[in-house]
């Protein structure tokens, strides 16, 4: 017990000190750390839908997009510049306080999640996958084209000049000084994301052990049996979609504030696939595994960008950083699954059903 506490304190201190250490080598490194945390947040959200409730969602990035665009629209000059009546109503510009934006983003994303969930409740696993994938594509096409006749999303050019996060007058967009020591904006965001991740882990941890979490897992293992035991499978599935989407929406608004810029490019199908890969690679339904998967897939390829230079020279420019990164992600997805089909850090196997019968050989 004492050992565990000791380990916990060490880990906490390491997480707190990490960006301060990394920023000595340039803000790019802290940026990677912060983005990795953002992916952890996304992965935790998707884990609720796929890992707990067993609903394969390949359009998760749509909710991320909803959150990001919500924040971007309400906290950038875009709407006041394009709509006169909004400009008249808000002469100082539309700088909506985050206490309004983030709940709105979360709420809208949750609504989108439930809206997507309702028509597809009847569908089986793989049908669900393609429908959610289609939903993600629909959202992306709209983001790309909703600039005519009313310019809402500014099309492929995206929205910029988005306000930085501002909490109780504490501006995350400006460098803070403690005496002589400077803490740049990226590092401040890192701490914000870290706090959010810790909060989310607590929520997920409690969910997993709650009545709701158990109902989800029952549905995942055997839907008919779950129904027979009196679980309202419809409501539970919708709740899973809604909760997962809420996580996506909040992460999205964080992303918008952090980047100061959003465009449809950040919300491609590739991104959805990447998040699914993170949770499956790490260990589906197991919080530490999911975090490991997210950090691994988000941070490692970015780090490899820095070693790509010599490789590029060796291959005469054919293998540049972006290609190398993609190659490594692809190889990681294939080889990790082949070596550890249940993920790198799967949940321990207690209370699970008996091994599969032989007849399921092909399934």
């Amino acid at each position: 017990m004492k050992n565990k506490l000791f380990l916990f304190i060490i880990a906490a201190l390491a997480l707190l000190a990490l960006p301060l250490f990394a920023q000595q080598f340039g803000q790019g490194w802290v940026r990677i750390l912060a983005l990795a945390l953002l992916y952890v947040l996304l992965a935790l959200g998707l884990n609720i839908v796929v890992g707990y409730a067993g609903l394969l969602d390949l359009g998760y990035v749509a909710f991320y997009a909803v959150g990001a665009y919500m924040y971007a629209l309400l906290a950038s000059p875009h709407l006041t510049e394009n709509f006169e009546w909004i400009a008249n109503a808000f002469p100082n510009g539309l700088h909506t306080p985050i206490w309004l934006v983030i709940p709105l983003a979360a709420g809208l994303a949750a609504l989108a999640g439930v809206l997507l969930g309702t028509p597809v409740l009847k569908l089986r696993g793989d049908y669900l996958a393609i429908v959610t994938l289609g939903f993600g594509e629909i959202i992306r096409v709209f983001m790309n084209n909703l600039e005519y006749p009313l310019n809402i999303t500014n099309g492929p050019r995206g929205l910029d000049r988005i306000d930085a996060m501002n909490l109780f007058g504490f501006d995350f967009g400006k460098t803070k000084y403690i005496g002589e020591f400077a803490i740049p904006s990226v590092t401040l965001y890192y701490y914000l994301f870290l706090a959010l991740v810790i909060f989310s882990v607590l929520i997920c941890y409690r969910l997993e052990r709650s009545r709701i979490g158990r109902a989800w897992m029952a549905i995942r293992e055997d839907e008919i049996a779950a129904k027979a035991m009196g679980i309202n499978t419809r409501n539970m599935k919708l709740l899973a979609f809604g909760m997962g989407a809420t996580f996506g929406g909040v992460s999205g608004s964080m992303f918008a504030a952090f980047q100061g810029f959003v465009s449809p490019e950040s919300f491609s199908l590739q991104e959805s696939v990447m998040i699914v890969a993170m949770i499956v690679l790490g260990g589906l339904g197991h919080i530490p595994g999911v975090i490991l998967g997210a950090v691994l897939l988000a941070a490692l390829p970015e780090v490899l960008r820095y070693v790509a230079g010599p490789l590029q020279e060796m291959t005469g420019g054919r293998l540049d950083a972006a290609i190398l990164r993609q190659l490594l992600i692809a190889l990681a997805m294939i080889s990790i699954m082949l070596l550890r089909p249940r993920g790198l850090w799967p949940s321990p196997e207690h209370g699970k059903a008996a091994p599969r019968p032989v007849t399921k050989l092909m399934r």
Partner: protein
Amino acid sequence: METFFQQIINGLVLGSMYALVALGYTMVYGIINLINFAHGEVLMVGALTSWTVVTLLADSGLPGWAMMLISLPVAIVVCSALNFTIEKLAYKPLRSAPRLAPLITAMGMSLLLQTVAMIIWKPNPKPYPLLLPTDPIDLGGPVITVTQCLILGITVAMLSALMYLVNRTKLGRAMRATAENPRVATLMGVRPDMVISATFVIGATLAAVAGVMWAANYGTVQHSMGFLPGLKAFTAAVLGGIGNLAGAVVGGLLLGLVEAIGAGYLGDLTGGVLGSHYADIFAFVALILVLTLRPAGLLGERVADRA
């Protein structure tokens, strides 16, 4: 009215290419319950292989149709070998693993194929030469190109051959038996591993043909060209009822028609508010509508309410 018939022709041509690719998805799904996300990339490899062959033959003095005819079998062989290897390396070891594991390797394979193609063929789009006569044939209003005629003809021929193979031959019976129940099929002397390999080779053949025709029809080839057709073809397979061969064909043609007609009329219907760049979402809107009403797809059998 003329536009309408023109869009019907365009839709049928597009739809028959979707149908060929969709058959690959549906056969694999029917037998091993795997969404083979790398299937669209097989189409891409077929198109790029054909491009390489045609480019190599450019100075040979052969007529255009002959070059294409030579490149077609090369593309088929390359794609078949590729798909065979992919199945052996990435899917076979995972047959008894949790369901999501092969799905992730399939997604990884798709990404890997795109990346490797980018390294081999460079990322820039390349023009596919015009090998067939380009003057349109007048059908009394709507027109059709030689390439489009060829696409329709080849599709009908390939579909007939496939139907014969699946319904009349020993291999076809083994495929159907394996899809039904692999264990019982084994008792009847069917070797599931052999059947699965054959399925992947047949799927690759159809995709390779579709890829060459896609290149000939649109005139450009690129490492990322397989993604959207693959996605649409998969949508078509689900639309028709995945696992059902006729369903894949119906779904493919339907999707092609919906897209062509939608793209042709959406601008007029909405007074220019929604332009043809929304064409890509028709596939998915149609999919969601159909599946809401018929959760097992148009021709799919009704599945009992289970997860």
